[in-house]
């Protein structure tokens, strides 16, 4: 009954034009939906659920955020939906993965590009790491490169798909080492790619730092290198690719954050851009993220805009040769 009354009240206010008059002061007045373009239980989904768990608090948005999964084709299904079908009213947001969606739009065949979305804030940065099974003969990137040089095209290594962070890292490693290896994209994404490494279906793999951290804690894999500019605080003992003589920068680091479709009212974007980074910074969120082995990296809307532009340029150069 309360909801009915509330609904009637909202209808009346809208009719009276009050809502229009003072812009988006009432936003949000109902729950917000956050579309995740990967399956339930995946790294992006699981982190999205953690970072949005305090959305209903009064110091955050005051309304809960509901996660909805639209998985398929490395994220293309979900982002296509967000770009072309979602309502741009501020009640539909999407989780982004950089470099994935930008790389896919550079490659073509999708309905979106970086210009189709408006970033709100970034919550995490998950570098790609190079993993091998715990009983593998490889103990460093140098071992891998030596073997690959002796057996061109025969070193199989898995990753979450084509034109996602793992694939970018794979391309960079091959280019930096000057070797040809066999990248095997997995249709079940990161968890499938990790299974392929642990089970020995492939000889090595590129995977998320957060997942590899847990797998190493479980004793099933060794981590040979991080594709980032600096070592990661979750694993200070693992050297970067650069330290091992491979010229691989941070272009493949998987940045995760929240965006809205283009056309969302500016007032709503401003309001979200102010509230969401603070929501991510909540100490309960940070605690859960740390417990789950997921590196956080909070960035504001302006920082994300700059990061997107920089990534787009790098990826265009890198993928031009393909």
């Amino acid at each position: 009954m309360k909801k009915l009354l509330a609904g009637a009240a909202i209808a009346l206010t809208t009719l009276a034009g009050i809502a229009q008059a003072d812009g988006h002061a009432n936003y949000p007045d109902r729950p917000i939906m956050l579309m995740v373009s990967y399956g339930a239980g995946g790294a992006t989904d699981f982190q999205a659920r953690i970072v949005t768990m305090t959305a209903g608090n009064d110091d955050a948005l005051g309304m809960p955020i509901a996660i909805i999964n639209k998985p398929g084709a490395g994220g293309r299904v979900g982002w296509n939906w967000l770009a072309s079908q979602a309502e741009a009213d501020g009640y539909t947001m999407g989780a982004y993965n950089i470099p994935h969606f930008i790389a896919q739009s550079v490659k073509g065949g999708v309905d979106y590009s970086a210009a189709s979305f408006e970033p709100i804030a970034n919550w995490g940065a998950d570098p790609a790491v190079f993993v091998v099974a715990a009983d593998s003969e490889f103990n460093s990137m140098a071992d891998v490169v030596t073997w690959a040089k002796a057996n061109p095209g025969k070193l199989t290594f898995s990753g979450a798909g084509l034109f996602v962070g793992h694939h970018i890292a794979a391309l960079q490693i091959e280019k930096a080492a000057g070797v040809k290896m066999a990248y095997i994209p997995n249709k079940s994404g990161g968890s499938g790619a990790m299974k392929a490494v642990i089970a020995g279906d492939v000889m090595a793999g590129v995977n998320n730092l957060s997942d590899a951290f847990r797998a190493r804690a479980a004793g099933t894999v060794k981590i040979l290198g991080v594709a980032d500019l600096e070592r990661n605080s979750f694993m200070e003992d693992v050297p970067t690719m650069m330290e091992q003589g491979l010229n691989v920068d941070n272009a493949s680091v998987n940045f995760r954050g929240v965006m809205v479709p283009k056309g969302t009212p500016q007032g709503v974007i401003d309001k979200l851009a102010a509230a969401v980074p603070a929501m991510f910074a909540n100490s309960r969120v940070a605690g859960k993220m740390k417990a789950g082995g997921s590196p956080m990296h909070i960035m504001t809307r302006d920082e994300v805009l700059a990061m997107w532009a920089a990534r787009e340029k790098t990826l265009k150069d890198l993928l031009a040769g393909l």
Partner: protein
Amino acid sequence: MEFLYYFDEVFTLWAFSMLLLGTVFGLILGATPGLSPTMAVALAIPFTFKMEPAHGLILLGALYTSTVAGGAVSAILLKIPGAPANIATTLDGHAMAKNGDGKRALQLSFLASLFGGVAGVLLLIFTTPILAKWALVFGPSESFWIAILGVTIIGTLGSTSVIKGLLAGCIGLWISTIGFDDILGTQRFIFHSSLAGGINIIPALIGLFAIPQVIAMFAKGRSHEDMEVLEIKPHPLRKAIREVASSRRALGIGTAVGSMIGLIPGVGGQIAGLVAYDQTRNFSPERTKFGTGHPEGIIAAEAANNAMVGPSLVPLLTLSIPGSPTAAVLLGGLIIHGIFPGPNIFRDYPQVVWPFINSMLIGQVLMCVFGLMIAGAAAHVARVPRSVMAAVVLALAVFGSYSVQLSMDDVFVMLILGTGMYFLERYGYSAAPLVLGLILGPIAEGNFVEGAMIAAAQNGIGTYFFTGTLNLTMIAIVVGSIAYSVWLELKNRQVGGV
């Protein structure tokens, strides 16, 4: 025997209330067409944020077990499987219910679930290290052959002729390719924008099974004759217990096949019931009676379904590899509480893992008790007038397919597939092979593509798919399964049967 020390953790007030809550809700959600176990578990995760890890996991585990069993209720009474796992249950379960023995079918199904479920959890408790190795043995080539084994079953499920069954299977396989190709991202057969997201299995399942039932109820018009959906005769529980206890073959094959196939990451859960059903039929002297309401059909399917639950957690708990969508969601639930699954999980987190596993044992018993109560109430459900039932099922089908990913497109696909299926059913085609095609398509294709890429880098496709003990064993089973069906078909023709 360490697990015995942790039973009292399950019987604390909080833990036991979680268990009860999870079981009752799981049965209700499972019995509601369109709410799959994956969804039920995913929806419950936010509630577990604030709980103690053990309590949260108990809730999730209870939900998982009981939604799988609850799916049998609508499969039997309405011929609408609650989840892909319950497809095999519709074949004989609904046939039996149509004969007036709905109560008996439900009792058999819950008793078989209890047996299979407990056996599965015991396997999880005692043989985890061995099972973990077995789960890893299945690489792309082996998983591909498992999918092909599933394909060989397609022709024999439910249709009036093997050809029509295979044809329906082909339509299902084709439908599974609609949308974006998972690896290359190429658009395939997207002739309408509603198909851009591909065909999601849950809305398809709801449509293919529920909508034909709804239209069939329309077809009776406003006549007063058999206004009720089903007639339900009373059936004493001890008779059902005796019946299940004496069906050793169905219980044995169901449990063995269910737990072995359920273990394989990415393949098992959805087809375990069907493979077990098919194998039990092959070994049964009353083979021809399957599909007409044979008790063994129900017992094998439901024993397999629930036997799968325990072992399907093995790759998750010991290797951190989620073998099914539901397991993936459970993994999220574990990680949120800071528990990293791995070979040492039993050493590092005994106070969480053992109560969780024990609660699944107790949960099986609770599930069976509540399930039998539902069986008792089934007569009331079946007394609902046809007109009301048609409207209820239609509304549930719409809400269920919409809620999977909040998409109207899924609802459109659901209604169109379902309407098409109604007409096809009238001409002797059946929904079960079509759905099986839809499930097996991505498994066969994905593993073939992955295997082919690995093979191209190594020794070539021939060597990769056709050597190795397990590959050859699987191929032998596939060939044997086809040969056996052909032989039976020929033998039946000679006798003059169909």
